[in-house]
């Protein structure tokens, strides 16, 4: 039997796999954008004069 023919996966399986990958990557890209925004906000808060002063102050 031809191995290349037997190694082929069904079309429905490939479609589901690719769809799942695309959905997962879309979610990951959204998370990346959200994380970037959050990191930027936190860094902006840290860089304020009060926060910088508190960082170098004894408790």
């Amino acid at each position, binding site marked *: 039997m031809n191995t290349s023919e037997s190694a082929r996966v069904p079309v429905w399986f490939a479609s589901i796999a690719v769809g799942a*990958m695309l959905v997962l990557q879309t979610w990951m890209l959204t998370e990346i954008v959200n994380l970037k925004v959050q990191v930027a906000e936190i860094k902006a808060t840290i860089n304020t004069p009060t926060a*910088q002063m508190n960082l170098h102050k*004894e*408790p």
Partner: protein
Amino acid sequence: MKKYLLFLLAACFLLAGCVTKNPAFDSSAPPSVDNPAYVPATNKTDLLLAKIHTQLDRAASLNAASAPLNPYVAPIDTGLKTTRTVVDGIFGAIALAGVVAASIKNKLANRRGKALVTLARADTNEAAIANAPDAGVAAEISAAHYEAAEVKPAS
């Protein structure tokens, strides 16, 4: 010389066998259309060639008819192979992009965690400390804040 004579004798026997076994030389067979002996020797080659060609044509037609149904014969289609290669490449690129995106997301999550810890250290709950009745309570508030933030106070 002896070998040569033996070889010649064997050749004669072989030729005699061929002649006697050949229906074309079988004079005892009744003459008919189906009997090859009836056909003149000059036409036998043409007949044989015609038979061979007929068999070849039949085999070719059978092969052509059975090729699409034969599971052991893979269709040779370079265009289809190229398409499969391109599709496999797209699948691989999507999977690779997923791995890269997951790595970036993990790195950003770590960066966010570190920034939150720094933010917790920066935010010392100054309002509560300022409104504390005495220095001891203020120190307790500050220590509790650092403990809640699970960070060590800046030294």
